[in-house]
Structures are given as C-alpha cells and as structure tokens.
C-alpha cells in the first residue's frame, strides 16, 4: 500500500510536469506543423530571470511572475526571429532556424552570465515534506500536481470556451480555411507562442525547483521529454500530449523502480528506442489529431 501511494504520487507529479511541457510544444506544432527546437530555452530564460532578480528583495511570487512573463516574451521572440521570416519557405528551414535560435540563447547565457550553475531563489515551501498515508514526500511534488491540474483546467477552458481558443483550434484543424474565414494568422501564431512560453515558464519554475540551480543547458531534458511525450500521445492532439506526458512519467518511474542499477543509466536510450518504435507502428501516436490537409 505504501509503495502504491509512493508510486502514484511520483507518477502524478512527474506526469503533471511532463504533460505541461508537452502541451507547450504541441500547441505550436498543432497549428504550424513545425517543431520548436528552442522550446527548452524558454525554461532556461525563466530560470536565469529568477537568478537575475534574486537580489531585488521582492516577494518570491512577484519574482516568479516576472520570470514567467520573460518566458512569454522569449516565446514570442522565437516566433519573430525563427519562425515568421521562414515559415512559408520550408520545413527544414524552420527546424534549423529554431535550432540556431536555441543555440543563440544558450550561448548568450554562457557569454553574458556564466557557464557555471547559478543558484535560483526558492521559497521555503519547496524544501518541506509532507506525509500522506504513511509516505513522506516532498511538498514540491504536491505543488506540481496541483499546478498541473489548475493549469490543465484553465487551458481546457481557454481552448473550449473563448474566441481565441476556438480560433486556435480552427487554425490547428485547417489553417487555410480558418484564415479565409477571418482568423488573423499572425495573431493566432503569436498567441500560441505566448501560451507555449507561459507553460514553459511555470513548468520551468517547478523543474528548476527540483535542483535549485540553472545552467545554460538546462532546457535539453525538458525538450526531450516534450518530444517523447508528444510523439507517444500524438503530435497533433492536445489531449494526446497530456496523455503522453503521463504515460512517459509512468514508464520512467516504472523503469526507475524495476531496472537494475547498471541498466538504469541507459534509461534515455530505452525511452527513445520506445519512441522510435511507437512512431513506426503508429506514426500518428496514441491519439489521432484533427484530420486536415497540408501545412500552410
């Protein structure tokens, strides 16, 4: 029983974080059919903003809000620098520009801040533990679960009930048709990037809360996680991304508990091989997205 509770809490907290990461990647992919390689750097931006404002003496929540706003700006900047100028030209061009933009941000952090880890301020609550059914677990995990639930609910409301959300879903289904019916393309795409930045910023704070420091390469792991989760869940479906996040968390936690120590270090190789196999059998992932025509 204790093991079950431990396992469930682990899967839910890890899965919540993974689901949010995947959602941030898929919201852009769904509309543009383009992968944003600079997605991980949005998390890095949130982390370094926390570091830079840490001396200001502001309350933690204000600093966190500033960090999330910076991540949103970085998301919109990705659109303007890497996507908008080349969007219509070729898929490969956008993949390379977003990869270049990611390298640009990482090396800017190397050059202007430091290659060494920088300490990020964390509130007391992040280091406390709590007891649930006889299991001691960090309070951080519970916070992650609650944040994920709240954000997912908000996100679902946004996508289903607001004009912006409906327009975004329309654009994801058939971009050309949506444009013809008067949905402003650039605004929709920028909003998708802003939401992507918002999710990355919040999940970044939770992610960095696990280690307490930020380095220029911090975005790689969340990027890989988001890749795997979206591929498992279905590249085009928002529900699929969330599902994929939880499935991946389940696999990762399961492997953590079951693999012997000497194989555990190969875990990333196992999960990525799994992704490759899933793509071969079901190229569309677990959840099929909206049927639609070509990329525009």
């Amino acid at each position: 029983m204790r093991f079950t509770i431990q396992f469930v809490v682990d899967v839910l907290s890890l899965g919540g974080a993974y689901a949010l990461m995947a959602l941030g990647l898929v919201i852009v992919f769904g509309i543009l059919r383009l992968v944003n390689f600079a997605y991980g750097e949005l998390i890095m931006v949130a982390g370094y903003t926390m570091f830079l404002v840490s001396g200001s003496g502001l309350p933690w929540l204000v600093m966190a809000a500033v960090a999330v706003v910076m991540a949103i700006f970085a998301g919109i900047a990705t659109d303007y620098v890497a996507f908008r100028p080349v969007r219509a030209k070729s898929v490969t061009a956008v993949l390379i520009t977003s990869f270049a933009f990611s390298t640009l941000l990482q090396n800017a952090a190397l050059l202007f801040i430091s290659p060494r880890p920088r300490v990020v301020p964390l509130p007391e609550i992040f280091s406390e533990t709590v007891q649930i059914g006889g299991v001691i677990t960090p309070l951080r995990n519970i916070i992650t679960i609650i944040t994920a639930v709240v954000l997912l609910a908000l996100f679902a409301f946004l996508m289903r009930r607001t004009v912006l959300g409906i327009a975004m879903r329309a654009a994801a289904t058939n971009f050309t048709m949506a444009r013809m019916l008067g949905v402003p393309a650039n605004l929709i795409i920028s909003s998708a990037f802003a939401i992507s930045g918002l999710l990355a910023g919040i999940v970044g704070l939770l992610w960095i809360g696990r280690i307490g420091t930020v380095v220029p390469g911090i975005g790689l792991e969340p990027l890989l996680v988001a890749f795997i989760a979206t591929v498992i869940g279905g590249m085009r479906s928002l529900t699929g991304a969330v599902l994929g996040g939880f499935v991946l968390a389940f696999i990762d936690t399961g492997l953590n508990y079951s693999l012997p120590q000497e194989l555990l270090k190969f875990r990333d190789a196992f999960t990525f091989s799994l992704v490759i196999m899933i793509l071969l059998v079901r190229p569309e992932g677990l959840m099929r997205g909206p049927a639609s025509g070509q990329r525009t």
Partner: protein
Amino acid sequence: MNRNLATAAILSGLIIALVIVVEALGVRVYDRISIQLCISLVLVLGLQVFMGNSGILSFAHIGFMGVGAYTSALLTIPAQMKGMALPDLYPFLQDVAVSPYVGIIAGGLVAAVVAAVVSYPLMRLSDAAAVITSFGLLVVLYTVTTNWSEITNGPRTLFGIPPATNLPLAAAVAVAAVIVALAFRESRVGVLLRASRDDEVAAASLGAHVPALRWLAFVLAALLAGIGGGLWGHFITSFSPKAFYLKETFVILGMLVIGGPSTVTGAVVGTFLVTIAFESLRAIEARLNEAGLFSDQVVGLTEIVLALAMIAVLVLRPGGLFPTREIGTLIKQRRVKPKDPP
C-alpha cells in the same frame, strides 16, 4: 569539359590549393586548422549526401562520427596502452592493434553497418517525425557511448589513440569525399532521390522506392561520417563522448546550411567559409581572454555569430549560397550566355 567533371576539378582544386599554400607557409597552427577543415569537409559532404538529396534533416550524423571514432580507437590503441586507457575492456579486444589506416576504414564500415541496421524502418517517415526520430537516434547513440564504459571509458576522456592523420591524408580523403558526393548526386539513385525530395508522391507513383533510396543515401552518409570520425580520432588523439553531440551537430549543420544543402559546391564553400570565420572568431575570443577585459572567460561568442549567420542566410537566401546548381554548371551557363541571339 563535362560540367560534373568541371565541378569536381574546381572543388578538388580548391582543397589541393589549400594544401599547397599551407605546406609552403609551414605554420603549425595553419596546418592544424587545415586538417580540421578537411575532416569537417568529409563530415559535411556526408551529411549533404543524405540531407541534400533526400531533403530530410538528419541530426544523427554526428552520432555516426562518434561510432567511427570509437571503433578506430578500439582497434588501434596499442595493447600496453589499453590496460590504462580502457581497464574494463573485453579480453578478446585487448590484443588487437591494427594500423590506423585500417582502423579508419573499419570505423567507416562499422558506422555504415550500424546505420544500415537501425535506420531502415525510420526512412518511411518524413517531415517532423523523421527529424524527431533522428534526434532520438542521436540521443540513443550519445547515451550508449557515455555509458558503455567497457569500450568507451564512459563519460571520461579516452586517450592513447596513435596520431596518424596529417594534412595530405585528410585532404586526400576530402577530395575522395567530394568525388563520392558528386557521383552519388548524379547516379541513378541520387537522381531518383532528388525527385522524391521535390515531390514524394509523384516520385513514388513513377516507381521510385523512396524508403530504399533514402536508406542507401543514409548508409553512405554514415560511412563518410564514420571515416571522418576515424580521421578526427587519429588527429586529436583523445576525446570524450561530449565531442559527438549537439554542439558539433550545430557546427556541421551550420556549414551545410550556409553553403546550400542541395549542392556539393554549397557544402564545400560553406565548410571553408564557416571554418575561416570560426577560427578568426576563436582567435578574437582568445585575445579577449588574454587581455582579461572581462572578469569571466569569454565563451560562446563563435556560436552566437554562427547562429545569427544561419538565421540570416535562411531568411535572405533559404537555399544557401549555392541553392540548386553546382559550380561547374554555373560556369558553363555563363560561357554560353553571350552567344544567345538578341
């Protein structure tokens, strides 16, 4: 002269001219930079063989360079060094010590075999799915090299590889790579593959077996990457798995994209330009660090400039500097033009 022969002659001439100038100058630093350039050429041309002809971005290329480098290292490190460099090595490999030239070729072949085995099913995928799986393949190869301590010494540096790569050898391999890349581009497989790049459905409906064509190109690309890795291993003589990851991928990709992925000329010109720019910027970085103007070391400047250059090229000239035609074709056309009737 045939336009393809003209291209081959001009591009090889460029490499040979570099060798002659550098040997005449006899400056050690230039010698090392030129060797590095020739090895980059082999790698970039390998990537061009796959990416340029199939139109699919591949991130896994540098992973195969790593396979080549580690294979060659394993086969060539002298037996008495192996005890120190690789304490946990399997017994049957302990006494193997072949000539570095054999090792480099073996490196290429092993990389090609690994690519042939793992990549066939992946070649059915296009667009974003293909890119994500190739990225996945890079991560898998990196994870394996980092953790298979028995043969790679884990994440630590592997040392003791006998030096063998000099400028004439590297340049000769680079010239061979130019010829291979050109020959592949003009071969039946290359032409069919380029047709599938421009319109996958149309090419398939005319009877082109697209996955098989892509697979051939991918294996050839891995062969070149493996040979490039072997050459690099015998040049640098000690390395760790970190050398075969995202940073290196970015540099190789930058060279190809700036020059123009669809043409061999583009690959060669891009490699020359980026290497020159990179080395100058590195020199500036070193000067800045020596002068001690800043409290911390200056790092990452070169990557920032390369990233900006890549974005600028893709925005202004999405096909790179040489988007569709090889240099030989361009020269022929210029010669023909004045004869046109008014």
